[in-house]
């Protein structure tokens, strides 16, 4: 591998379809539905594209139990050169996860990550990882332009729909959004070969040496939102009408069908103006 740039990709093995008990809130997980989030899949695709452009190699790493090796085999089928599972129990703190991932990715020029995990993680691993590797960090990326080895131009999302283009020098840790790329489909031969491919296993580092230690993590609960109710002085019928929005005049939806493209475009613009999207 010496001499060829290494592109790392970190993937979290998560339940893509957790079953939540409506009465108790208990979450039942099924390993058969575990896999990588769309953001992590996009990260893998970017890593593969970078390695192709730079004639480099891709190392995929996931921290998790042995079942996570199925995910890494899928990565190998898509073209990853080396897959490493770090043996770590689920629920480890972000700093611990980042440090064990960094042990595998010390030589990486770029590390790609998904920008958030499906299991409502804190999204802190890429930041910790950049700290561990002494690398630059760019997050919320919607586009990557891969130039000469060691150079990248990325576009990231800012608040209020703005975008920012950044020149990034390696080493860097990049967090990409799920919609930024679609993971390629592995060929059948690669899928068959990946069944017997070697997934390396590395041991995790004990958490005690880290500076941060979560004392208590509360489960995710959406915040209640205050909704103005109807005037309590009104009679029940009027309150009900206000709550349901019944008997309120509104513009009915309409469907316009026309064979004339210019006319159709004009009608669409007119409707968008009417809704206030165009000024």
């Amino acid at each position, binding site marked *: 591998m010496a001499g060829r740039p290494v592109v790392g990709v970190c993937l979290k093995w998560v339940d893509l379809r957790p079953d939540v008990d409506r*009465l108790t809130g208990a979450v039942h997980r099924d390993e*058969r539905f575990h896999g990588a989030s769309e953001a992590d899949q996009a990260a893998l695709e970017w890593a593969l594209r970078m390695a192709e452009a730079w004639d480099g190699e891709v190392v995929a790493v996931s921290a998790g139990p042995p079942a996570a090796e199925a995910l890494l085999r899928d990565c190998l089928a898509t073209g990853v050169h080396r897959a490493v599972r770090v043996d770590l129990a689920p629920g480890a703190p972000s700093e611990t996860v980042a440090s064990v991932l960094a042990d595998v990715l010390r030589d990486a020029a770029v590390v790609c990550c998904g920008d958030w995990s499906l299991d409502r993680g804190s999204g802190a691993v890429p930041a910790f990882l950049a700290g561990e590797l002494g690398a630059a960090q760019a997050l919320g990326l919607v586009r990557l332009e891969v130039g000469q080895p060691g150079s990248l131009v990325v576009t990231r999302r800012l608040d209020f729909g703005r975008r920012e283009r950044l020149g990034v020098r390696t080493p860097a840790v990049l967090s990409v959004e799920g919609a930024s790329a679609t993971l390629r489909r*592995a*060929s*059948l031969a690669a*899928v*068959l070969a990946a069944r017997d491919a070697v997934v390396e296993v590395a041991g995790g580092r004990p958490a005690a040496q880290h500076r941060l230690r979560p004392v208590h993590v509360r489960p995710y609960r959406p915040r209640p939102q205050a909704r103005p109710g109807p005037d309590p002085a009104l009679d029940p019928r009027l309150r009900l009408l206000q709550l349901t929005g019944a008997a309120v005049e509104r513009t009915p939806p309409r469907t316009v069908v026309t064979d004339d493209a210019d006319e159709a475009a004009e009608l669409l613009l007119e409707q968008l103006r009417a809704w206030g999207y165009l000024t």
Partner: protein
Amino acid sequence: MPEATTPTVAPSRPSLATAGRPRDAVVDAPATPDFDLVVVGAGPAGAAAALVAARAGLRVCLLERGPFPGAKNMYGGVIYARILDDLIPNWWDEAPVQRWVTRRATVVLTESQALTIDFRSSAWGEPPYNGATAFRPDFDAWLAGKAEAAGATVVTSTTATGLLRDGAGHICGVRTDRPDGDLTARLVVACDGVNSFLAKQAGLYHHEDPKHFTLGAKEVLALPRDEVEKRFVLSGREGADFEIIGGTRGIPGGGFIYTNLDSIAIGVVLGLDGLRKAKVRPEELIADLKRHPMIAPLVDGAQLQEYSAHLIPEAGLEMMPELSTDGMLVAGDAAAMCLAAGIWLEGVNFAIGSGIAAGETAVEAVRRGDVSDHGLAGYRRRLESNFVLRDHTKLRRAPSLVMSERVQQRYPQLTCDLVEALFTVTNPEPKQGAFRAARHHAKRSGVRLRDLARDGWTALRTYG
């Protein structure tokens, strides 16, 4: 060309069986194909075929379009798995079963009446058991796991999109939706389920008709385990199976309720033609069922967990395709091997039975080096010598009888009215004789006695 001229070969209107059929890909068949056997579909038929062939030492690939075997399944019925006795001894110790069915009820419903024939057997709650409720994602994954353990290569998230043929026109593999996705094999077993694209592409279906299919729609409702047991009078792992006649607003079909450990499956099976004409959505009919005075207390307070729907090949022998062609066998729902014969509603056992026969035939044919249609004749012989085709042949009249207008609409009303009349005490009026009451209600229901006699004779010939 003048209008009156008839072309030598008239372009015929494509039939349902061939319309939109993709062309087969012609390839150079390698001397050593990728596998001896490619089984398409890791349902019970495919897994059983793969298990048998892998155990016999064949190189087997089991293709599954879902992320794992069973992932695409919606079946919620009873599995009669005694066919596994030889293949997996003591299968009941390890099969992922929800409940063992010890209570079997046939319910005749009208809008406000219900007549139930309720049978219980404690013997069905002990090995070797009779029927079981199970979640098919668990059951199929378990059976496919057996095939994998026996040496089959299970490839998931991969769809077979067409057949490969060699220069002589013999099927020699399948094309998948993956890049470079051609998979060559000495023999293909199509277990790709109802509406099998592979069987159609191979030209094995000749007279497909929407009337041959029903739509099964099902809700899984969550209930605490003790509540399931209390409402259905069960204990431990005992389970109940209610098959319902009527209650579908006159649409040919019926309903069902099955108990799982901490949920129940309730649903309807509807003739496609009747459903189309009635212009009603299947979930409305399930809602009707749940509101029925007999059923409402059973489902009260249950939380909807899942809704799903699926086609069922209902017409038995009448719709069965040719079962083999050069280089390919068809098994399970792909070959319409689902028994819908009124009092017997079975599918998984027929799928497993046909899968086992396909696996055995594949082993025999591959070893002999003859996978031609002639060389695969043992498949039909095996099916004819066991329950799969014998039951279908014996019960070939059942689907049309069961789905007939009289059985679906008139007899439920007649039966319920008659029973209500017999058990209603109208003193000071004296009791009406049973025969007189039967004649009266038959007339009121529009049932002629000669039709009743004819249907009775048909039923006797069918089920006798």
